[in-house]
């Protein structure tokens, strides 16, 4: 008879190793990192350019995003529809997007169609058409897309919250820009951005899949050799932080049946070598078993989920909390979050730390199981400057973190008076406001318009 009263023991050690990586570069200066993974006849190719939307001119915010929408609308000998037909016929999946810091091209194809797919992608990057007709259509579509997403409470919450958190800093602006800046953009602005920012010296390529590195390098060299350095007249983004003062802020969103709650704290610059911070977040709000979710969902039942994460970028980092609750419990939720913040700065247990360490260490096999996951990790290591040997002593580095390390960081960071608490909801439907403090009503640009 099996003993069901205790968890079974682990069956041996796995001895997992991070997959072998090869690093090389093309003759025009693109760094290439690859890993041969023949388990499926698939290849994932990523090209990342380190010039995201923070490099948009302030009056033209949204240019980076619109350029990513434009760049595959015709290239080389193909017009927009012909190019799409060529890619689609191969069954290849191509996504092009950007965030605040980077522009991303990700191509996944069957091995047998990789060479042709890579040729088509290289044409997109080297020889985009940027015609007036395509520009007019894509700009109109993007403007409509922005109008569409502006009806989503979570989009509005994120957009306004970012402005409160980062002030005039370029990280406070959504990649869409706004309706005015998007409307300002001309075809020439797209061409200028492409000319200035889409440069091989600012690009890295990471590839994982069923292709040997020599063959891969030959293909990349062949297709990307004609991509030349551009003039690189880079706009210098405003990275000076002018955040709003800590406190509680509210954005009225009439008709809403839930409140979107965002809580944030600007932190000293954190990266993935800061293991106490990573472990602390797992304990605080990083997964379904963390304190935040246990209190707000499993104990109180007032949300579907409550989570936290460190927003880690090149020039800025912050601890962010996110949840959605029914209107009647909006302020109760904020009080509970404050309580969780207070509690964690006072007492973290050895058991919690042990859980967080085990989770991080044991997760490695799953984290690198698929070509997409593995390539995403490699790409992240490179663009965040973590080094490709990051995982070499990973287990030892995590195990070396002490309870004091994590507790000291929690005591330093988790001071509720330093956080910004933000909620959106229908003002008419709030039943009670019970925070014993002033609440500032803001508009969608983050400006204070009222005190409740």
């Amino acid at each position, binding site marked *: *008879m*099996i003993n*069901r*009263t*205790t*968890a*079974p*023991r*682990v*069956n041996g*050690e*796995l001895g*997992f190793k991070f997959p072998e990586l090869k690093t090389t570069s093309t003759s025009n200066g693109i760094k290439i990192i690859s890993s041969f993974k023949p*388990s*499926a*006849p*698939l290849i994932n190719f990523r090209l990342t350019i380190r010039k995201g939307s923070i490099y948009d001119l302030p009056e033209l915010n949204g240019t980076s995003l619109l350029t990513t929408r434009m760049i595959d609308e015709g290239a080389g000998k193909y017009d*927009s*529809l012909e190019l*799409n*037909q060529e890619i*689609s*016929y*191969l*069954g290849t999946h191509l996504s092009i997007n950007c965030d605040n810091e980077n522009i991303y091209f990700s191509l*996944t*194809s069957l091995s047998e169609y990789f060479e042709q797919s890579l040729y088509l992608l290289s044409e997109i990057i080297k020889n985009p058409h940027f015609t007036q007709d395509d520009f007019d*259509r894509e700009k*109109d*579509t993007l403007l*409509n897309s922005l109008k*569409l997403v502006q*009806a989503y*409470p979570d989009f509005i919450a994120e957009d306004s919250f970012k402005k409160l958190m980062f002030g005039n800093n370029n990280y406070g602006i959504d990649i869409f820009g706004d309706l005015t800046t998007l409307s300002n953009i001309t075809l020439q602005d797209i061409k200028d951005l492409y000319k200035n920012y889409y440069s091989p010296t600012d690009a890295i390529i990471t590839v994982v899949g069923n292709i040997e590195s020599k063959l891969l390098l030959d293909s990349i060299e062949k297709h990307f050799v004609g991509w030349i350095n551009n003039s690189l007249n880079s706009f210098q983004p405003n990275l000076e932080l002018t955040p709003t003062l800590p406190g509680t802020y509210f954005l009225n969103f009439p*008709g*809403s*049946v*839930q409140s979107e709650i965002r809580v944030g704290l600007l932190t000293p610059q954190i990266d993935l070598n800061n293991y106490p911070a990573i472990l602390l977040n797992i304990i605080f709000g990083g997964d*379904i*078993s963390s304190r935040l979710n*246990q209190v707000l*969902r*499993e104990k109180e*039942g*007032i*949300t*579907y989920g409550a989570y936290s994460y460190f927003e880690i970028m090149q020039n800025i980092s912050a601890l962010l909390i996110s949840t*959605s609750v*029914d209107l009647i419990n909006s302020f109760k939720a904020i009080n509970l979050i404050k309580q969780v913040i207070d509690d964690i700065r006072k007492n973290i247990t050895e058991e919690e730390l042990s*859980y967080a360490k*085990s*989770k991080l*260490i*044991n*997760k*490695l*096999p*799953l984290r690198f*199981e*698929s070509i997409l996951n593995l390539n995403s990790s490699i790409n992240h290591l490179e663009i965040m400057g973590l080094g490709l040997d990051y995982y070499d002593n990973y287990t030892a580095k995590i195990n070396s973190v002490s309870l004091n390390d994590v507790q000291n960081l929690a005591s330093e960071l988790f001071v509720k008076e330093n956080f910004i608490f933000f909620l959106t909801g229908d003002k008419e439907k709030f039943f009670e406001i019970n925070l014993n403090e002033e609440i500032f009503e803001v508009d969608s640009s983050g400006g204070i318009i009222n005190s409740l």
Partner: protein
Amino acid sequence: MKTLDIESSSHKLSNGLEVVLHKDSSVPVVAVNIWYKVGAANDKVGKTGYAHLFEHLMFQGSQNIPKEAHFRYIQEAGGSANGSTSRDRTNYYESLPSNQLELALWLESDRMGFLLEALSEEKLENQKSVVINERLEHYDNQPYGLVGEKLNSLLFPFGHPHHFPVIGYLDDIKKFSLEDAKRYFKNYYSPTNAILTVAGDIDYDNALNLIQNYFGDINNEMGIAEENFASLPKLEDYKYLEHFDKVNVPQIYFGWRTNKLFHEDEVDLHTLAFILSGNKNSLLTKKLVYDTQLCQRVSAQNDLSKYDGSFLISATPKNINDIEQIKKNIFEIIENLISSNGTLDKEIATAVNNFKFQFVHSIEKISTRADLLSSYKYYVDEPNWFLQDYERFNKVTTESVKRIAKKYLNKNFVELRVLPKNDK
């Protein structure tokens, strides 16, 4: 395609539990996947959302597992876990490093055999509140969030198993009692009503032994027989609905009833959807997004299940005044597709290449492969059906696509317009 020949072995325990095993040691990962043959289609009038709410209760602990410890055990072991509810089934799954297989079997078997011993009024009330918030967050507070609910209630008349939303109505969720939960568990959560798939870096004999040890002694207390959905209410005419929502941009939807999963028409329906909106050159996208530029996007897709299916076309107009013109264009394109003498060979070849990519991509991860093994076992009683599934697409022809379009995209359809509240 050799890649799609996924070897597996099938077994049945004496208590009726069906077991599928699949070995792949390319990465030290294992997936455990259980399908219970009950879903939202089994929900009753006044008791909608029960299948989904019960999925939540399955994570609230069992005789030997404390409340919410399921996730904690799995995550501590470096894994991930979750569940999902569809109309046809409720599934639960874990992915883990392969040396942790036994942990997942312990957790799954404890809730299959001994859930009720730990179920309480307090846990039930907590999860009812969580699910109500889930509904608010994902449906009621989302622009266009009620589209599926409204379309399906019209497409599938009262009495049809697709009539109700999977998440359920708020009033019904609030009424779910502890007695309901206990009855539900006894009726549906029995070994004979489940398929367990274990895939990945395993040894067949060892895995089967462990499964026998953990699941073999669970009593089979199956309460009721499978529902009879043989006679389903039909959509007899055209139905039109305007829904004024808190949106800035209108959307229009056209829905037709089709057929069930794995019906002989299924692959033609998928191909038809691709030909209409699968890429920029597809018929609807080219006409409405590129040529006339009346829409910012258009989409055609199938929603098929064990009992029935639907074909849906949706479009986002750039200008609310163009809706009638867009509708006219959509129906002209469908009519032309059906009546023209032209060939669709190029479009079909493109579609098949896309399906091929999706097949290969979907089986790369052990967890999705395990779910597909459970799926094939459930729907066609043969877990290794990947290749046959894919090869069905090679039989699609211009004639078969036109025949299907004519057969299903007829005058009996549902039209839904979601319009900005301010324009009311």
